[in-house]
């Protein structure tokens, strides 16, 4: 999976057009397309999960990776 694919995926078939995700999106990355929610400004998406959390029909997916971070390495200046 390339970095460009790490974006919210909206299933237009599932989307009921309620607009909650568009209202909740803090960066206005989401907008309308054919009366359904769509990622209209992918560059603005901060992957905060607000859209996935509010979607009542589970039409939005944000896959994630779990990584182990070396604390010692992180704390070096």
């Amino acid at each position, binding site marked *: 999976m390339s970095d460009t694919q790490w974006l919210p995926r909206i299933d237009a078939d599932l989307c009921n057009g309620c607009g909650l995700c568009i209202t909740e999106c803090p960066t206005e990355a989401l907008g309308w397309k054919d009366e359904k929610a769509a990622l209209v400004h992918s560059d603005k998406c901060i992957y905060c999960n607000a859209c*996935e*959390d509010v979607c009542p029909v589970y039409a939005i997916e*944000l896959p*994630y990776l*779990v*990584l*182990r971070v070396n604390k010692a390495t992180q704390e070096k200046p």
Partner: protein
Amino acid sequence: MRQPFSVVNYLGQLGYFAGQPPATLERIAETAIPKPTEAGETLFLEGDPCVGLWMIEYGRVKIYKLNPQGQEHILRILGDNETFNEIGALDGGANPANAATLSDSMLWVLPTQTFRELILKDNAFAARVIQMLARRVRGLVSQIEDLTLYSVTVRVARLLLKQVDDPALSGTGVTRAALAAHLATTPQTISTALRELETTGAIRFDRHHIQIVDEALLRSIAML
């Protein structure tokens, strides 16, 4: 240069067929049925006749049950080189659960007859099948323990520790909604639990990464 895909080489990489001579692997490969699938495809339904043992060359698959209202509970998420639906292939009964892809996947089906012939002819193969069944029982016992005895935050912490060591359990197709369906809760509750874990300093969010920054703390929250 990447070598062309060979079913025989692929089968040889699976734990079940380790140590099988090339001639046997070739015979097994002849019966294997390729199943290229796209994300979101249903592979089989609970109650349908079992066609055989499924093998994942690459991709992600969820095994799940549905309640009468259509709510999903994900029993397992599987990735590359894992196998599933052994139960149906072994007892000749119907599929015990549903299966669908979480990502574009290349799958193979080893027909029930081939699977059973191997068990009857090859003691080492039969022993590996028994070991796998024992692992599955352990996994189910642990799942029941998690669901009945621990809070969502503890369950999420436990799952994160599994995910970090198993590439199949995060990445493409694995979302908070999938996690919620696995941990018998809602995506919103998963998000709340993740934020709680972030507040403790055990994990950190970095865009699509959930970073485990203090594993000892996370293990302690997970009661491990």
